[in-house]
């Protein structure tokens, strides 16, 4: 099974797609290229258009008002769902309750008029692949959530689709099972070498499985890239705050003889290494809570670090770390300090100093 895919994995191209539900625009001039064999993720909050985009590739939902969808070289924009050969795994699995597991998995092959003998063999192989061969005669209602998920996967890959689409497939599972299933899906994709598009609103899920991902908001693709590049180099506020927790400070860039600085009010002055921004321009400084070191008020600044002074206004114990909210001038910054047994923490209202390495600061145009 695996060999057949690796040789013929196809890419997906989405060209200038615009789509509305009635008068409400849902996708606005979306352009994307997904490489053959890639594990690609659409990440975004609910209502961002990520599921609509996925369903568009499968041929469901309203037709786009402009643009086209290509799978390999084939324009599928106006093809009926049943003529596309893309496999969609539904959020709620959509297993047919009136059919056994075996019948569910055999359905697509029957519709493709595959000979009975071959159907039996391929269904066995697919169920074996997901480890459910023993449960072939069960009905979906007799399976656990994770087993239902595997049946849905087997049912989809058994027809050897050109592209595998996964619509929030883990959202109905409990936390432990979710971690296990996402590994299984990832392994399965690697084994089959199948071009896969995964939709989720959970950035941890996206980070762990994706080769690349696209962050969507309000029907617009905000940024495309590898998980780490999106986390480290977000292009705007939305991407920065959607991927993890971020301190975002409004201010401006200033150039003096001792280098370029980012200034916000009087309390925050951070040396930065940005050339592209004009001096005086409105800008947003981005740094992650774990990039700030929290120390006693009188601790000296290290080389290449900015030193900020403030006082602790809030404190949350999160297990592996302690998250402080520190008031610096008008701003409240979040600071993560890793927690070790026995280590003392700072008290509320205690004056502290914060240390920030300039390499950890990213300045975005405001």
């Amino acid at each position, binding site marked *: 099974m695996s060999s057949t895919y690796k040789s013929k994995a196809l890419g997906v191209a989405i060209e200038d797609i615009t789509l509305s539900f009635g008068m409400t625009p849902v996708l606005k001039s979306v352009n994307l290229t997904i490489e053959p064999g890639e594990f690609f993720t659409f990440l975004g909050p609910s209502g961002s258009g990520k599921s609509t985009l996925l369903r568009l590739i499968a041929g469901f939902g309203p037709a786009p008002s402009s643009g086209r969808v290509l799978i390999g070289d084939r324009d599928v924009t106006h093809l009926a769902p049943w003529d596309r050969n893309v496999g969609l795994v539904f959020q709620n699995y959509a297993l047919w*309750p009136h059919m056994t597991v075996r019948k569910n998995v055999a359905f697509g092959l029957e519709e493709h008029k595959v000979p009975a003998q071959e159907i039996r063999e391929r269904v066995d192989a697919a169920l074996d692949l997901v480890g459910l061969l023993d449960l072939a005669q069960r009905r979906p*209602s007799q399976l656990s959530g994770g087993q239902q998920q595997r049946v849905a996967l087997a049912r989809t890959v058994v027809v050897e689709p050109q592209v595998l689409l996964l619509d929030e497939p883990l959202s109905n599972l409990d936390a432990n099972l979710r971690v296990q299933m996402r590994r299984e899906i990832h392994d399965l994709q690697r084994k089959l070498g199948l071009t896969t598009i995964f939709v989720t609103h959970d950035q941890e899920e996206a980070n762990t499985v994706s080769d690349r991902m696209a962050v969507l908001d309000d029907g617009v693709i905000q940024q495309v890239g590898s998980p780490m590049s999106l986390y480290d180099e977000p292009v705007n506020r939305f991407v920065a705050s959607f991927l993890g927790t971020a301190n975002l400070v409004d201010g401006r860039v200033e150039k003096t003889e001792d280098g370029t600085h980012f200034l916000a009010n009087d309390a925050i002055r951070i040396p930065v290494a940005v050339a592209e921004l004009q001096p005086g321009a409105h800008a947003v400084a981005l740094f992650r809570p774990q990039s700030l070191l929290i120390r006693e008020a009188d601790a000296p600044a290290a080389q290449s670090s900015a030193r900020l002074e403030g006082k602790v206004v809030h404190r949350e114990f999160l297990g592996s770390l302690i998250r402080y909210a520190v008031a610096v001038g008008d701003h409240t910054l979040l600071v993560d300090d890793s927690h070790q047994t026995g280590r003392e923490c700072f008290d509320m209202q205690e004056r502290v100093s914060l240390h920030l390495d300039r390499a950890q600061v990213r300045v975005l145009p405001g």
Partner: protein
Amino acid sequence: MNALSRGQLGPGVLAVVLGLFLVVFLVVPVAKVIYVAFQDPNTGALTLVNFADFFKTSLFQESFINSLYVAAMSVVLSSIFALPLAYFTTRFNFGGSVIIQTLGIVPLIMPPFVGAVAMALLFGSNGSVNLLLDEWMGFTIPFMEGLNGVIFVESVHYFPFILINLSAALANIDRSMEESAQNLGSSGFRLFRRIVFPLAMPGYIAGASLVFLKVFDDLGTPLLLNINNMLAPQAYLRITSIGISDPMGYVISVILVACSLLALWTSFLAMKGKDYATVQKGGGGLSKRELRGWERVACYTVIIVILLLVLSPHIGLTLLSFGTVWSFSVLPDAFTWAHYATVFETSMQYVNNTLLYAGLAALIDVIFATAIAYIVWRTQLAWRQWLDYAAMGAVAIPGVVIGIGYLRTFYDFNVPFIDKPLATWWVIIVVALAIRRLPYALRACVAALQQVSEALEEAAENLGATKSRTVRRIVVPLMTGGILAGFITSFATASVELSATIMLVSAESDAPLAYGIYEFMQSASGRGPGAALGIIAVVIVGVATYLSHLFIERRREAHAPEIAVPAGA
């Protein structure tokens, strides 16, 4: 767009065929009736003179008042039966739900006119109850005198409509509604008046308007009790005795339709925007408590009295069907199988006709209802909602009106090859039954379709199944329970329907059960066989209902837990 328009061709053709059927057999006949009502019988010009004549004639004035009075009083009496039962079962812990479920099918398995004669023998001035009362207490109660009889018979049959709707409304009230009122200091009767009563009101109104509608339109019961000064019997008598050219039958039809629409509109207004049940989720129903000793006695007494009342037509009918002579006595003089023998020897054509007509009508209903449900809920065809509206429109059209409309519209239309008017061919009875029961089958099928998550269809299409293959392999199999429920409801109610068929039966050999019962009950000597035929009808409907119940239950056990795929998570 290509993919969409290509997928719409099949449903489009189907929609046109269904639309034509509804136009020809529902819209045109009803429009014809309304048109004739406003037409001068001599000149053919449009006029209001027929209505003026109607309201000037004292018999019609009286009939109009009587129909309103009977319908309104039936609502009152039904409420008296239903309110305590609904309250007991939702407020106290006791085995009332089984009774409610059982009562729910009573109006379904026996229409009031079948039991009317038996009720007269039990509750009439010389009936069993009054004979006993006179003997032991020295007084009698005129249960069955004149209009009282109609009100009593109708209430006993139709009160479950109020009971079911009201119980559902009470059961849907979120317990936190009551608890938050208590938390804010409200209790006892004030709590009931300010919270429970307003929340349950829409359910009550819905049930009450249904009772009003059913009673107002009923033809069989007044006819059998020999009460002719009401609207439906007047319409029937005018058409059958004077002929289909007499305008009064049409005027009465228009008034019947108008009052039906008014009752439905009232129920619509009551329910509109007041679907309280779906607003809140959580603990369902009022807080229940155990009955205290004397309360238990009182509750069960009320329940048993009401149960006896509800079952009295069945008890009476059974006695009548086995009794030799039953007159001026508490029970029949002796018991015999002779009436059943008579029926089996001479009247089996009624049973066969009924099975054929009701079976065909129910089959047409579920096929059409499934198609309409799919077109309306799963396609994007323009005007598709109108199919739903037209099919549901039959709810507001009394059987008498359908009958008159068919006679008027199809009498001049000769069926090819058999060379007789369509209006007198037995097939027209099947069509009338199908049209009249279509709304119920449609609601059952729509409910069933809504249970099938669209993702289940999309999954099939995604795996290569076309729309029509998806309907055949996924949608229809998953709707089976609902379709079957629709079939049984249509079959059961069609097999005992009288008001449209009584006008369309042209030959004894074409007549169904209900007509046969009506014919037998006309004479004193025919009562026994008539009752036997009634019992046979009840058995047929009861068995069909029970079998479908079994089938649906078995399917539910097999795989129902997630027919409705959980939304979100």
